[in-house]
């Protein structure tokens, strides 16, 4: 019986797939990260100019998706199609310094 159990355990272990690599670790980063462009080649915004809702609506259709942030009563929107070309904004909303990434 013990032999049978051991055999089953051995068989189970043999059939297990390779353990997937642990991601979001420095070792995994070093193994697979790829420098695809120079640092800062991609535009990042810091404390960008903003407009009010009325002005925004002259450009944005109602169906346009936005990331909405509501912090201590201060509200701000980041259209996805703008973030698609920026990816990262260093901003301040209310009393908080924020990093908006997409």
């Amino acid at each position, binding site marked *: 019986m013990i032999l049978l159990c051991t055999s089953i355990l051995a068989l189970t272990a043999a059939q297990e797939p390779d353990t997937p690599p642990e991601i979001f670790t*420095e070792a995994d980063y070093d193994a697979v990260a790829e420098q695809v462009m120079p*640092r*800062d080649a991609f535009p990042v915004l810091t404390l960008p100019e903003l407009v009010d*809702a009325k002005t925004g609506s002259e450009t944005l259709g109602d169906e346009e998706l936005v990331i909405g*942030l509501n912090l201590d009563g201060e509200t701000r929107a980041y259209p996805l199609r703008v973030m698609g*070309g920026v*990816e990262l904004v260093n901003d301040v909303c209310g009393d908080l310094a924020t*990093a908006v990434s997409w």
Partner: protein
Amino acid sequence: MYDRSLDGETLTFGHEGVLYRNSFVMYDKGSESLWVHVTGEAIKGPKKGSQLRFLPSVIVPWGFWRTEHPETTVLLGKMVEGFMGSFNLPQRLASYGLSVGEGRNVTLFRYALLSQVPVLNTQVGEEPVVVTFAEEIALGAAFSTQLGERKLHFDPILVLSKPSAASESKSELPSKSAAVVPQPTVSTMRDSETGSVWDIRNGRCLRGPLAGERLKPLTATAWLGKRWVHFFPEGKVVGLPKAD
């Protein structure tokens, strides 16, 4: 969406130019540590192991956002074409989910399920939560059901409403919007303990004994399901058995 203050220091991030597991990498200009933008965690450098604090945010159509928050400011800039930035309800229902939780301790509730169960009483980790879904704008949210000493249970309130004129004019919205029969929609829920009525989109109590109260929102972000699974292979997925 993160608070970029860390231990009394305000970090300013730049773009490292690196692609790591289909995600771009940020660096902070002070220590030049590298940060994964998906988790907000420093992966390499002097700040390795540090975690930025998540800030709650939503992804909604601009028309909804400006109506809810007429005082909002908005970032304008070059609009990327051909990008999934315009509201397409069938596509979002089929492909997206709501990721609830922070860091790597997250659960994905697929929109395909939430559109069937728009008020879902459940648990994330140790916390009792209600996950809600306003289908017409594909807005998912999650709230703690603990309110002071009370633990609340919620049921959806169905109302029959005619499709809006705006919905009818948009061909990309679901075909059922074009139907002439009223459609059942859910925008409020009722707690079993007091009978109070709550807005499912923001967790505010509209009327009843708890009017004026607000449920604590949990960090919840809309994710393209296949991307989420790639980033969080050990995360829990809650969805329809057949579709998932």
